[in-house]
C-alpha cells in the first residue's frame, strides 16, 4: 500500500468524493463490501469521451482476489444509456493468482462496472472476479459491491 493512502483516504472519506485539483484526474474513495475501501482514479483519454484510464488501490483487504499492495490499472470505457440518464464506467483488470485465494493457483480476471444515475455524485456497482486468465463472464467467484461518491471525469 502506498504511504500516501491512509491520509488521502481519511481526507476523502470526510469530503465524500474529493478531487486533487483541476489538472488531476478525479479520485475518490468508494466502499468495498460496505466495510472496506478502494481509492479510485479516472482519467479521460483522447477526445472521444469514451476511453478512460482507471486505477484502483484497495485498502488493506484484497478479499482473496488481489494483492492490496499492488494497484490495478487498466484502460476502460464510459458507456452511456441516454434513455435512462445513466452512465457506466467499465474496465477489465488482469490479476495474478492469489495464494490461498478464492481462485487457488489460477489467475483472477477482475471486471469493474460502476453505474451513475441521473448525474448524481453517487456511483454503485461491482468489481467482479472470475477465475482464470482473460475470463470476464460466466459464473463469477465473487462480486465485490462498490459504492460512494465519485466526481465525473472531465
Amino acid at each position, binding site marked *: 500500500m502506498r504511504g500516501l493512502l491512509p491520509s488521502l483516504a481519511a481526507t476523502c472519506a470526510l469530503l465524500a468524493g474529493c478531487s486533487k485539483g483541476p489538472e488531476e484526474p478525479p479520485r475518490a474513495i468508494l466502499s468495498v463490501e460496505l466495510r472496506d475501501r478502494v481509492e479510485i482514479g479516472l482519467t479521460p483519454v483522447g477526445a472521444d469521451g469514451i476511453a478512460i484510464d482507471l486505477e484502483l488501490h484497495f485498502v488493506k483487504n484484497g478479499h482473496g482476489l488481489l494483492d492490496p499492495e499492488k494497484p490495478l490499472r487498466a484502460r476502460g470505457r464510459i458507456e452511456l444509456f441516454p434513455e435512462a440518464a445513466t452512465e457506466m464506467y467499465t474496465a477489465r483488470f488482469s490479476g495474478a493468482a492469489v495464494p490461498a485465494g478464492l481462485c487457488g493457483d489460477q489467475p483472477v480476471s477482475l471486471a469493474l462496472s460502476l453505474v451513475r444515475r441521473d448525474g448524481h455524485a453517487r456511483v454503485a456497482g461491482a468489481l467482479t472476479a472470475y477465475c482464470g486468465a482473460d475470463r*470476464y463472464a460466466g459464473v463469477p467467484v465473487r462480486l465485490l459491491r462498490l459504492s460512494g461518491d465519485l466526481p465525473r471525469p472531465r
Partner: protein
Amino acid sequence: MTARAPRLALALSLALFSVAAALPEAVAEGAQQKFALSVFHFNVQYVAGGMVGFTPQPSAEFDRDERAIEDQIIVESFEPLLDLFLAHPTWGADLEMQGYMLDVMAERHPQILEKLRTLAQKGQVDVPSFHYSDQLFLAYPREDWARSAALTRETFARHKVPLATTVFCQEGQAGPGMAAAMKEYGYKTLVWPKNLFSYQHGDARAPAPVYRFGEVAMITSQGGKWESGADSVDVAWTFVNDGELLATGDVNPYFPGQFKKSAPAVAEYEAGLAKLSAAGYQITTVAKYMEAIATVVPKADAPPLLDGTWQPGTTDGVLRWLGGRGLWPEERDNDVRTLGALAHRELIAAETIARVSGIEAGQEIAGGFRLLALGQVSDATGINPFRGEVEYGLAHFAEVLRIAREVIVRGRTALGAKVVAIDTRFGMVLPDPPAPAAATETTAPIALEVSAEGRSVAERWTRVSDGNYRVELRFGAGEERAISVGFPGAMGDIVYTPGLAEAPVHVPRGAFQFSRFQLALTDGLIGLGGGRYAIKDQARVHLAARIERAVGDVLFLDETTPPGEATVWVFHLVEGSEADAAAVARGLNVTPTVWR
C-alpha cells in the same frame, strides 16, 4: 429481508372446518383421508450479500459474509430438517428453494446435498423450485423468469435432484399468469398463499380444496375439511413459512449469533407430526396429496385473482418491494428496480446483436441472465433491506450491464457500424440508423396529482405518436423521501398484464373484497378506463401501482427516494386501443429497440 409470516399453528390445534356446503359433489365415494402438508420455503439469499456492514461499527457477531450466512442457513436450519425426515421414512414434506441453493450446497456442503438427493430421489420429500434466484419475478418481463426457470431445471438435473411439480415462490408470489407458464414448464400445482387469497376475497368464503388454474391446479395453504357423502378429506398445514425458522426456534439469519439449530424446536415439531400421524394423518407432499384426492375431490373454478405476495396485509402487498419504506434509511427501491429493468433491456439487446452479427457470446449471455436473476432478488428492496442488500441488487445489475454492453460493442464492430438500432422484438439490427424522431412538446392531456414535499417538480409532456404521450416528472433534490404521482382513472375492469403473461387481462373490480391493492406490472401497463392507459418506463420508474376497489385512480408512490438526490420518473400515456397500449408497453419494457 424475507417476510416472516406468523408460523402456522402446527395444525395441532386442528382448526378444521367444514366447507362441504360450498363445494360440488364428489366424483367417487367412500374415502376418508387425512393429510398433513407443509411447505418449507428456504431462501439461501435470506440476507443477500451477507451481514457484513449491518451494524454501524464492525461487529464480530454480525459481520459474517455472504458465504458464512449461506453456510449457516444450510447447516443450522436446512440439514436438521433433512435429518428429521431421514429419521421418519414415512413422512414427507415440500422443501422449496431457489436453484442457486443447490449450487451452493454442491460447492460447499456436498454431504448435505446428498441427504436431500436421497430423500428426493425416493420420493419422500419434494423439492419445489420455480426460480433460480429468490427474485421478484412478477415485476419483470417473462423472459427473465423463463431463463431463470430453465437454469433451475438444468441445475436440478446437474445435481441429480428431482424437480417437484409443485410451485411455491419467494415472498409467496402468486398470480394468474403463472398458470400457462407452469403448464409449459411441466409444473402441476400452485400453492396459493392463504392470506393473499383472503386479502382479495375475504375470510367469509373458505377456499375450495382444489381449483382449476388454467390447465394446471391450484390449492391454497389453508387447511380444512371437505365432505361429500361418505367421502371426506381433512387437510392440516403444519408449516408454511420461511424454512429457516423451524429448526432454529423462529430465529432468522439476520441474527447470525443466535441463528443456530435448536434441538427442542425440532423435537417439538417432530412431536406434533407424530401426534398427527397417530391421529391418522398422512404426513406427505403436496404432489402425493393431489394424486390421492384426484378422483375424489373435483376441481372448482377459481375466483378472479390478482398478482401478489403472501402477506399483503402487513406489507401493503407488493408495495413493500416497489416503493414501500422499510426500517433502514439506505433503501432505494426505485433505483434498484429501474436498474434491473435497464439490465434486462441491455441483455436482450446484446443477445439480439450477437445473433445477428454472428459473434460468439453464449457464455456472456448465459452468465448475464444468471446474474440478472440474482440481482432481481426480492430482498434488495424489501421487506427491510439494509444497505448491503440494496447494493447486492445494484452490483449484480451493473455487472449485467457491463457484460451486455461489451457484447453489443463487439457485435457493432463486427457489423462495421458506428451506431446500431437493435430491435429486440423482431431480432433485427440496423447499422448506422437515422436518429429516432424527436418527440414534440405538448400540453398535458390529463391532470396528474403530484406530491413531493420540499422538492421542486417539473412536468413535461411530449407527443411520441398519435395517442402516445410521454411525461417526464423531474423531482429536485430534497430531504423528503416520499414522492408520488396519481393518474386519474375511471371505474371499470382492472386492466393489467399479470406477471409471466404477455398480454393485458380484464378483471372485474367488483369481484374483490379489498379496499386497495398494489400491482407490480410486469410490462408497466395499467388501465385507467375510458380508453386510457398509463405505462411505466421501467428504466425510469418501477414502483407498485395502487388501485382501489371504489375509485378508478391509480397511484405510484416511492417512500425510499434518497435524500439529497434528484430523480426523474417517466411514464407514457396511451389514448387508444388496448392493443395499442400493450404494444407501447412491450416496446418500452419487454422487447424494446435500443440505439447503441
